[in-house]
């Protein structure tokens, strides 16, 4: 199966290992993965700051690069959510409509399209899953604790396929980490406080590695962890599913 790989800008620049893990994992699962060169960003940073007009050029660029693929896979629920939900301000050409239908978060692609039932990876650590908000409540990759529906989580399902992993649920299963894009610098005090609280929740449960579907949440948490010289680690879910050790 031929898939287009979309690597979000901050992963490209700061966390290439997440992109590599995603690519390797997809290839291991038999996909023919194409990474169109010249990728930049989905446009979310501008749009979430109220400047979606300034993001339109990035939207067009994204559509142009990816519209030919039947599936565009990205290790980011947040970016996938943005393309699907907020590319509504540009003309809805066939290409735009197609892209908005076909951008998938990695977990959706693995479970809904590839219908993966097992994985060849081992990660013998106590892992806490951070449910990134845009994936959880935007893409509905699981049921948030707010809704009176049966509990489920695509990320949790995938992590359970990993050998040796011990999954631990924090006491607040899906509270926001406080990143929020430019919120992290507009409201640094609350942003950091929220992050500290998330980390403490995982630490109290004995978690060794916090994982998530969005590296942006983990970038924020890791920034606090490193500043406070804590032992707990972060790993994107693609790395764990691919068997990357901490």
């Amino acid at each position: 199966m031929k898939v287009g790989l979309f690597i979000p800008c901050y992963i490209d620049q700061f966390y290439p290992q997440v992109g590599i893990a995603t690519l390797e994992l997809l290839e291991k699962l038999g996909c023919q993965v194409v990474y169109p060169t010249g990728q930049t960003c989905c446009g979310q940073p501008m749009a979430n700051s109220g400047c979606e007009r300034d993001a339109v050029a990035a939207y067009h660029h994204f559509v142009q690069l990816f519209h030919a693929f039947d599936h565009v896979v990205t290790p980011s629920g947040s970016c996938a959510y943005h393309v699907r939900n907020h590319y509504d301000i540009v003309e809805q050409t066939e290409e735009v409509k197609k892209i908005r239908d076909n951008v998938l978060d990695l977990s959706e692609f693995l479970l809904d399209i590839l219908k993966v039932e097992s994985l060849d990876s081992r990660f013998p650590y106590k892992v806490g899953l951070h449910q990134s908000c845009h994936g959880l409540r935007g893409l509905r990759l699981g049921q948030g604790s707010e809704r009176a529906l049966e509990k489920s989580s695509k990320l949790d399902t995938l992590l359970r396929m990993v050998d040796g992993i011990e999954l631990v649920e924090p006491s607040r299963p899906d509270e926001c980490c406080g990143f929020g894009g430019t919120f992290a610098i507009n409201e640094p005090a609350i942003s950091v406080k929220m992050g500290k609280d998330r980390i403490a929740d995982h630490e109290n449960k004995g978690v060794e590695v916090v994982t998530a579907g969005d590296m942006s949440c983990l970038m924020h948490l890791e920034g606090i962890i490193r500043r406070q010289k804590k032992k707990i680690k972060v790993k994107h879910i693609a790395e764990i599913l691919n068997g990357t050790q901490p």
Partner: protein
Amino acid sequence: MKEHAQKAAEFIRNESRTDWHDEALWFVRSKRDKASHSIGEWEQLRELASQVKDNVLSNLDGYLEQFEANARRNGVQVHWAADAEEHNRIVYGILEKHQARNLVKSKSMLTEECHLNEYLIKRGIEVVDTDLGERIIQLKEEPPSHIVMPAIHLKKEEVGELFHEKLHTEKGASDPKYLTEAARQHLRQKFLAAGAAITGVNFAIAETGGVVVCTNEGNADMGVHLAPVQIHCMGIEKILPKAEHLGIFTRLLARSATGQPITIYTSHYHRPKAGGEMHIVIVDNGRTAQLGRAAFRNSLKCIRCGACMNTCPIYRRSGGHSYGYTIPGPIGSILTPGIDLKKYSGLPFASTLCGSCSDVCPVKIDIHEQLYRWRQIIAEEGHLPTDKRQSMKWAGRVLSKPAWYNVIGKLTRWAMMRLPRPFLYNRLNEWGKDRELPEPPKESFGEWYRKREKS
């Protein structure tokens, strides 16, 4: 627009108090989860409520006229107020007519919104809020910090101190039962002396012309039953078409607000008592304008349960006063820009857009989506700080041109690797105050991929 951020930072400076505030509200959110998840049809109820409200908002003019006609038929005097000023004038006029100098009020966010208390007090009326939380903050001369639990920001010791000063309770006493009893005795005198009683309105039924008020303390009934004149103040959006719709909303309201299956009192007022007078004041105060904004009209579905506040990770860590408006939290942040876009331009940004508010909302208001939409309008209307506006323009340019993006990415990583720490971590770096920047890798994913393709 940085006002919320500043107030939040002040609030957080006392971290243990922030934790206490966060936990208190999270406790309410957890109670709400338990109560709502224990009935099988919760999600259907939300959908139904949302649809009833859609119907109401689409036919508001007709329902309001029907409500007025039925209320008048019941012997109620109905008044219409275009704005806060007119509302206050009408209420004062009624009190004047009856020479009522002592007024008791049960909770009403609308009268808070209209600043009725100040208006009446200036004209020599004694106004006593009778909801315990409201009375506490009234004695403390503070605005409410929450719409359901107005004094949630105060600890019982602080209430004890306040009561000692104002109600002469024992010094150092903080037992909630003792303090509540003191408030009851104090309020009893006020109830008995009141010349008029005001209540808010949770629901107004078009079919019957009656209004419904939900309280836990029975203070609305106490006021209304004892005073010769009763006044009910409502926003135009409080309408429900029929009495049969009420059950959907009372079930949702109490569970969402406090995790109770129903409020202790659900009071139905249809007509004046023998020898008494009943007035209803119907207020617009910007609601019609909001109804006319397609992307934001849904905000008028709000039943003021406060669940979005209890769930909001930002509200819980910044307190209601950080929002600077009567209705704080996520719902306040989508209502206020419609009132004064410039003044409240920071509030839609006081959110990570995590979406929890939209999912707890019992009437399914797409709160986080509206926050996103308000942000666009705030930027378009020029209310973003110039540096932010400019940086986004540049980001937009760079992020649509791969060559620029690659060069700037590489330069940034180079700088992060080579520059001495003080160059990177200074007062301009808001990220770096309490967080490390990511450790820059030698090559980007794109660079790694191109190498791999070559080999």
